[in-house]
Structure formats: structure tokens, C-alpha cells
């Protein structure tokens, strides 16, 4: 299988779906002539033309308002948000319109919309452009929230998202575009709402996704040198959340650490831990621990930013703590 970057995988998914279905189109800031802030749509404008690759004003509510309207009349828009933080400017569209129109109009409309949003910290973009507010969006029923951790998953999940008849928020981590991984040749789809064991182990279950997967795999390598074998379950989709592989793993290891880049309070880890306690209480042999971002607005200063974000040593320490 070819090893390609996350950027190429996402780009391939978009390209293939646009080739396959003329109803698919892209809109967002600098997605056309410039080729995308993260160069995901480079070459698309020349190939597909200005009708299907639309540069927009710097107005997220306009981008999403237009996208939702287009979706209601049968197109399949893929709207790009330069950062997920800008979704706050269009919050009504993201959480109040897109996820609810189908319900509120008794199924007369469907919203086959994909919002591609770049999330995460670590690039010194300051407190307002570096957030990982995934849990905020996963809170709302009606909006699927996907956040892949490997190129293979990114491609397969994005293609499925574009074919979904309901809105999908597709979160791409800003520091992972260069991550390489094997991607199957030819067309393939990965269903939304399926967690996956990315590394088998017996001692502790790490539940994570996106950037957390990258960090957890490194932590797992270090722990393996000490004879500790962690099993890593990648959620891949935050809503709908697939607890099956998580519970199966926990029933085997009886100990879990949840790794997320967002803040701990009211976060993904809180949700997953509660679900484990609810559904596998009798299998817990130690309190479940969370590794998450420090409870501060993310600093600009590089040293402070790195200190506030979860790191590999935080994960290895938490794993050792639950093994006590």
C-alpha cells in the first residue's frame, strides 16, 4: 500500500467524490485560487472550475448559510473552515440549523453537508485560534462529528461523510497534515460511528482519537520497553460514539486512560469514562484517568503552549498510575 500524508489522503477523498458526483462542491476562504490554507485543495480550482470550487468572503456565517441552503436544494457542499474556532462565528448554523432542519421540517429536507474544520493547538496560533472544542460540537444530536487519526481513516471517513445525507463536522488536526500512513489503493469507504483498536495490548486500555492517537502510539512504544502493553482504541467518530471496542478492551484490561487534546472538564474523556462506568462498572480495577489539556486558554509562548498540551510523558505517567 502506498504511504501518503494525511493531506494527500483528504485531498484524494475530495477529488474522488467530486469526480464521482457532480452535486459535490467546495466552498470556503482561499480554497480556490490559493488552493487552501493547508493546501488540501491545490489544483482543484483549475480542474473543477470556479463553479465547484468557490472562494468566499471572510464570513463563516455566510459560508455555512450558503452551504446549508445549497444542501436543502439537493447539492452536496463541502464547506471548509480555516480553523474550527471560526465555527463560533457561525454557531447558529453549525449546531442550530444544519443538525435540526431535517427534524423540524418533518424530513422534507435533508442536509448532506460536510464542514471540514481545522482544529487543535501546537502551532503557536494563540488562544483564539488553537482550540480543540470537539466536545462542544459532539454535544448536539443531529450533527455527526468525525476526527480521524490516520490517513487511511481520513480518506475513508471523509468519502463516507460526503455521501452522508445528514451534516457531518469533519475535524482535521492542524499538526497532522504531514503524518504519513498506508492507504489502500482504489476506492474504499469507512463507516462513520465505528471505533477501532489501533494497537492491541493486555494491560491498560487507552481511549483516544486524532492527535491523541499519535501521542498514544508513541507512549505505547515507550511503555512496551518496560513490559507494559497498552491497547489503543481510536474513537474516530465522537458522535455517534461507538463504545463497543472500548468496552470489549476494558473488560479485558480492567484499566483505562483516556487521552484527548481538549480540556478535561466536560470533555470527551468525561463522556467515555462515564459510559465505561455505566456499562462495565464491575470490570473496573482502578479509577479511570484522563489526560487532557491544562485548564487555561492555550498560551502563545511555545514552551507554555507545549506545557499546556498533553504530551507523551503525561500518557506514560497516567498508564503507570492506573497500574498501581
Amino acid at each position, binding site marked *: 500500500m502506498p504511504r501518503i500524508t494525511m493531506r494527500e489522503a483528504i485531498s484524494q477523498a475530495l477529488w474522488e467524490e467530486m469526480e464521482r458526483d457532480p452535486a459535490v462542491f467546495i466552498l470556503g476562504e482561499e480554497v480556490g485560487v490559493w488552493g487552501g490554507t493547508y493546501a488540501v485543495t491545490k489544483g482543484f480550482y483549475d480542474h473543477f472550475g470556479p463553479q465547484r470550487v468557490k472562494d468566499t468572503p471572510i464570513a463563516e456565517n455566510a459560508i455555512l448559510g450558503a452551504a446549508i441552503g445549497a444542501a436543502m436544494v439537493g447539492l452536496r457542499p463541502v464547506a471548509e473552515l480555516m480553523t474550527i474556532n471560526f465555527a463560533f462565528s457561525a454557531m447558529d448554523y453549525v449546531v442550530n440549523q444544519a443538525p435540526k432542519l431535517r427534524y423540524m421540517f418533518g424530513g422534507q429536507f435533508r442536509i448532506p453537508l460536510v464542514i471540514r474544520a481545522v482544529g487543535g493547538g501546537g502551532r503557536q496560533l494563540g488562544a483564539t485560534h488553537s482550540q480543540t472544542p470537539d466536545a462542544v460540537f459532539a454535544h448536539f444530536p443531529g450533527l455527526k462529528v468525525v476526527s480521524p487519526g490516520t490517513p487511511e481513516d481520513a480518506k475513508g471517513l471523509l468519502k463516507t461523510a460526503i455521501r452522508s445525507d445528514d451534516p457531518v463536522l469533519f475535524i482535521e488536526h492542524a499538526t497532522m497534515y504531514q503524518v504519513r500512513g498506508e492507504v489502500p489503493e482504489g476506492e474504499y469507504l469507512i463507516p462513520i460511528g465505528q471505533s477501532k483498536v489501533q494497537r492491541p495490548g*493486555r*494491560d491498560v486500555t487507552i481511549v483516544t482519537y486524532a492527535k491523541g492517537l499519535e501521542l498514544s502510539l508513541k507512549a505505547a512504544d515507550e511503555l512496551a520497553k*518496560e*513490559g*507494559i502493553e497498552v491497547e489503543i482504541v481510536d474513537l474516530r467518530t465522537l458522535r455517534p460514539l461507538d463504545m463497543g471496542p472500548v468496552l470489549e478492551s476494558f473488560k479485558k*484490561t*480492567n*484499566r483505562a486512560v483516556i487521552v484527548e487534546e481538549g480540556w478535561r472538564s466536560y470533555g470527551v474523556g468525561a463522556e467515555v469514562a462515564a459510559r465505561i462506568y455505566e456499562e462495565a*462498572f*464491575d*470490570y*473496573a*480495577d*482502578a479509577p479511570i484517568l484522563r489526560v487532557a489539556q491544562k485548564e487555561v486558554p492555550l498560551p502563545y509562548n511555545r514552551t507554555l503552549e507545549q506545557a499546556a498540551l498533553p504530551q507523551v510523558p503525561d500518557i506514560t505517567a497516567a498508564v503507570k498510575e492506573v*497500574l*498501581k
Partner: protein
Amino acid sequence: MAETINMPKLGFDMAEGTLVRWLKKEGETVTKGEVLAEIETDKATVEVEASVSGVVRRLLVDEGAVVPVNTPIAIVGSADEAIDEQLSVAGGQSSVVSDQSSVSSEQSSVSSEQLSVSGAAASASAPDRQPAPAMEAAAPPAAGPVKASPLAKKMARERGLDLSQVRGSGPGGRIVRRDIEAALRTVDRGLQTVVSPSTVHRPPSAAEETVALTKLRQAIARRMAEAKSTVPHFYVTHEYKMDALMALRAQVNAYLPEEEKVSVNDFIIRAVALTLRQFPNLNASFAGDKVLRHGAVNIGVAVAVEGGLLTVVCKEADQKSLRQIAAEVKRMAAGARQGKVKPEDIEGSTFSISNLGMFDVENFAAIINPPEAAILAVGSARQVPVVEQGEIKVGWRMKATLSVDHRVSDGAEAAQFLQALAVYLEEPLRLLV
């Protein structure tokens, strides 16, 4: 601050004890470690020591009372302090029962099957973690609720394990999976130590007499009925040529002082232990869907005591010399006969030997001591006419019968074990090297 002294829990399945005798009266001073009372448990009479120094302020139960474990029996404090608080706590908890029949010892007894099932099911988690010593034989009663993980609680519930007897190795003393697994291994190896009772028929007397069962008798009754009704026994008997061993024993003992002399049974213990190393399947326990083969060879030796019998345990007997075995068994047997054994001396056996040789017994069959897989019943070494090369001669012979759990092993293996044992018993110099 006055201290409340409770009925200690001295064995895994001890639910209650009889307070036989107070050695201190109310108002007397007692120093820490001094004997306060004698209690009789299922297995033995044990002394209860004062855990603090002070004045015996109140004895809460009468002599002869049957007291559930962890129930307050006395309050020790300074001469003039108020003990209302302790008294109210004691009053709330204590339900001292004088009528034995109302306390069901069944409730606390744990069937060996329940315990052994999946005892070794899960492998220990991280390889560098050593479980803490599992069973605290004479642990002081735990104060407050037992801290255990939900998984540990579930495992204990499923296998009938009393968490108050398990030491937790997790943070803050929390009991976690590895502790339960360690405790179950201990339990599987040697929870129950009372072996087959010798049957003593009393001559019929003119008037019928009712004899109350001692705790020991009750335990034997319960354990043996359970063993005989749940373990499918079969028996294989072998006759051993004992001429060489009898001669060697006389020779060896000529060099030893009176108190260190080696018995025929000591030779047999060592011979059995060495043979078991070749037959791990008989040093084992049936555990539901699997057989647990024990790592150590711990030989239980039945000792007749007043009103019953106890099994003292010679741990890792395959690693010990004949003189070590002799000295250990002598010490433990003396303790058992005086009714004062240490819990560790009667726990953990993996195979038992019952020897009635001193009573001029030709041969007998013993009941297996669960959860062990086999027991060897040894008769007397006797001089009998034997045929050797077509001639009748006088020779030393001894019969031994192996009782085996048929779920674990079969006749052929039992017979091979007895043959392998012959190599040691008939060429006994092997036992000295």
C-alpha cells in the same frame, strides 16, 4: 482512648469462635501481647492476646459463648476513662449467641469448587508487579468498609471470597484483581486442612449418651461429607518391601539423639514429595473447567488430636532433608496435640498423607482433603511371610492406598505413582542423597 477487642478471624472459613476461658477478669491490668482469653475455632484452640496495654474494663461475653468473628468481646482502657462509646458500639454489633444451632456455620463455609473455579483464569497484568502476600491468616478485623475495586468485589462475590481477609496492594490499600488472584491461588492450594477422620466405634453403653459436637468435629463432619459427596474417589493399593528402609532407619537413628529420631512416616513424606515432582497431575486441584497443578509440593500430615484430627503441613517437602522434615513435623504435631497450632502450620497442603501405621493397621482408604486431588493412606510396616524365589521368608511389608479424584486422574496414573514411590521406599538411600 479505650480499645475494643474483637473475636479474631483466624481462618478463611472461620465464622465464629467459642470463648472457652477468660484469663483476665474485669479490673485486672493487662499488657500488650498478654493472653486475654482462649477461644476454640473449627480447627484449634487459640489464645487471644491483648492488642493494647491497660485495664480490662469490660468482658462482653461469657465463657462458653459462641461469638461471630469481628464481634467485640472485651474493652481495654485506662482505669477511669468513660467507655460509653465503646459499649454502645459493642452493644449495637454484638449478638452473642449461646445457642449454637442458631448460628449457621454453613454460611461462611465456601465450597472448594466455588473457590477453585477459574482461580487461575486471568493472567497477572503487568509482569513486574508482585502481588502482596494474599491471605492474612490472623489479620486484625478491618475497620470501616473494605476498599476494593469493583472488579475485585465482583470476583470475590463470584467465588465466595471474604474481602476482609485479603490484603490490598493497590493505592491506599485498595484490593485489586491481582490480590484476588493471589488469594484464590492460596485458597486453591490449601484452604481446608482437616483430613479423613479415623472412625472410632464406641462400645454400646447401657444408656444412650448425647455428645455435643466440638467445633473441630463440626468442621470434620462438614468437610468430609462435602468431599465424599462431591469428589468421585477411586482407590489403588500397593504393597511395599520395607526391609531396606527399616534397616536404614535403625542405622540412621543410632546416630541421632532421642528427640531427633526419624520416623517411618518422615521417610514416607520425603519419598512422596519426591515422587510428586514426577507426577504434577496428582499435586493438583480440580477447578471446574481446568486442573490447577500447584507449584509447590506441600505435604499435609494427618495428626490425631483429642476429638478429631488436624493436618499439619510440611511446606515444600521435596526441598527438605529428612531431618528437617522430621523436626518440623514433630514440632507441628506437638502443637496440634496441645490444641495450639499456628494457622500457617495447618494451611496450604497440596497432597495429604494419613498414616495409621502405629495402630497396627494392615490397610485403609482415606477421604480426599479438598481441593487436593489425592491422599495416601499408609498402613503398618509388618513382618509377614513372603515368597522370594520360590521360598517362604520373613520380610517387612507395608501397604498404602492412594485415593484419587477421578476428575483429575485415572487408575493407570495412580498405579504408576505408587510404583514410582516404591523406587524411593525400597531403595531408601535415595532419600538421604
